[in-house]
């Protein structure tokens, strides 16, 4: 009896500690080392990236020959020198296909993680585990295709959307791909794949999905406004759409064989935070639907997760191929 009393005291104290952690914005025990790492990255970004950007900006203003530092896919400035003012303001109506673009690096962002499990399905399948496993497999496949690949997380760690953006922007990749798993509890019979690019939407379901995925973003309302203003008419949008179409095509072709009743919901627009604030062409792919019981069961099978990874990697590699070796217009 006395031991039950002691156990209860410990449990109540632990419950209170967990609540205080949430109130004070601390991560739960066990996840705080990653927090320190993120803070270190943030400090590094302040002390290294900001001075570097300032140096390049000043250089561009004084010589008029500087590269744009905020559009990562301009690899050969000599082909189309950017005006000096472009260093300070994103150019309007820039057509990326005018540049000789190349895709050499990708940041993969496995959705959710740590204290945020994302959606879950039968048998205890959780979105955070599926996205991490699929992203790890995609990384291996893209590396076979000679792309340099980084991930925003490689373990079960909690990252706010702001953390993800900071990590991705610090890597300065050519592409950003956020990997998620859909949940449609009101239509459990559906198995859907869809790919999102940044944009606005009037679709209530898509709004709700963006609301769910944007939770715990780490951004304030003022940040949102600034970010949205910053991306209007951005040159990234055209490339993001091309990437999204290629990835959606890869997913549908790759997964239809395994799931004949798969529904292709195509490329859509939605205001996902990770797409607003990242500085390179980016997409968010919903690669599966965990609310469907059959799909949730299959997600436990590593061979099926490999099929998803293969389909996603094929879409990214096809896009990279089209940028690295564009078909000649003369032929």
């Amino acid at each position: 009896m006395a031991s039950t009393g002691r156990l209860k005291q410990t449990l109540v104290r632990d419950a209170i500690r967990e609540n205080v952690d949430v109130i004070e914005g601390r991560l739960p025990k066990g996840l705080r080392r990653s927090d320190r790492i993120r803070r270190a990255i943030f400090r590094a970004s302040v002390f290294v990236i900001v001075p570097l950007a300032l140096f390049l900006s000043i250089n561009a203003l004084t010589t008029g020959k500087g590269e744009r530092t905020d559009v990562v896919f301009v690899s050969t400035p000599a082909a189309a020198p950017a005006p000096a003012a472009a260093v300070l303001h994103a150019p309007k109506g820039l057509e990326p296909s005018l540049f000789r673009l190349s895709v050499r690096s990708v940041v993969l962002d496995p959705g959710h993680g740590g204290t945020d499990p994302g959606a879950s399905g039968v048998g205890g399948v959780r979105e955070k585990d599926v996205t991490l496993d699929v992203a790890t497999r995609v990384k291996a496949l893209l590396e076979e295709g000679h792309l340099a690949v980084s991930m925003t997380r490689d373990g079960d760690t909690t990252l706010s959307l702001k953390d993800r953006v900071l990590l991705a922007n610090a890597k300065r990749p050519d592409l950003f791909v956020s990997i998620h798993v859909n949940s449609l509890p009101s239509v459990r019979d559906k198995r859907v794949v869809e790919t999102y690019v940044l944009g606005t939407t009037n679709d209530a379901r898509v709004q709700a999905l963006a609301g769910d995925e944007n939770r715990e973003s780490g951004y304030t309302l003022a940040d949102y406004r600034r970010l949205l203003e910053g991306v209007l008419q951005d040159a990234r949008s055209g490339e993001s759409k091309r990437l999204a179409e290629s990835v959606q095509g890869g997913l549908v072709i790759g997964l239809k064989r395994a799931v004949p009743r798969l529904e292709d919901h195509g490329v859509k627009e939605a205001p996902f935070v990770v797409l607003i604030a990242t500085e390179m062409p980016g997409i968010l792919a919903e690669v599966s639907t965990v609310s469907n019981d059959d799909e949730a069961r299959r997600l436990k099978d590593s061979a099926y997760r490999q099929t998803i990874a293969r389909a996603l990697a094929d879409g990214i590699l096809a896009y990279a191929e089209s940028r690295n070796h564009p078909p000649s217009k003369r032929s």
Partner: protein
Amino acid sequence: MTSKKDVLHVGIDLGTSRSAIAASNGTKHVVESYVGWPLDMVARKIVKKTILFGAEALEARSMLDLHRPLERGLIKQGSAKDEEAVHELLKHLIALAGRQEGQRVEAVVGVPAEALRVSRQHLRGAVKGIADALLIVSEPFAVAYGMDALLHTMVIDIGAGTTDFCVMNGRYPTEEDQRTLTHAGDSIDDQLMKLVKTKAPDGRFSIHMIREWKEKFSFVGDPKQPVVARFPVKGRPADVDITAEMKKACESIVGPIAETMLDLLSKVEPEYQEKVQRNVILAGGGSLIPGLAAALEKVLLEVGGGRVRAVEDPVFAGANGGLAIAIDAPEGEWEPLGA
């Protein structure tokens, strides 16, 4: 210094379908989680109230802006009106508990096992001005605590919006010990709605009627008697046998719950696994479904057998557990939990 006498401790099970409160002054109340405001002046004159709750709100729904503000056990995202409705619902529950003027309220509220931190912060916002301090715990943990089932136990709390699983291993449950599924009471309603519509395409019935039939006649396994529902078909009242539809809808949650139960069991330390599978507790409204415990026991035969029992008081098990936690929390430790 506040004495225990000046404090009203409450445990609240804030449910998608029903919300229950148990207070340290001995009061207990349950309210259907509906909040409604009169649509216009005429409606206000008829209902004679500025806000209605629970069954009363449901009854007068045609005259109200009616909200069921919780979704999957949490405040619906993005709707200011739903946030206001949760605030009003909590205020109503604490008023029902008989708070004395000037009395401090220290509340423990249960939420789904995998509720996000941000959802907990929303809840904290909704409680502002109603309770003086708030401790949020996972609902199945509250149930386990209230029953002293703290060691080698699995609680499966089947609510309307979610089914929450929690394995108690003598420590505060981490996310590895808990799961949340959206296969729950509402998903049975959705299934039943579709099946009855298919059976009687010309019939007219609402989701509220479907819920009522489920609460009266739900079952898993063999029916004790035929399930006959009365609703208008082509404008005339008709008795329709929906036994097969009821069985199919109720049994739709058995597979997912069984799979998740087995998955969680497989993660228990091997030496304790047998003890846990002999100590599975069903809570929440879903635990009242006849035949469900037996169906899960049948599944446990695959891993050597086990025992599944339902809590005695499913309506108040969560609230009672919350109250027990509130009373046991040392007075000085409520300080940083100010709402």
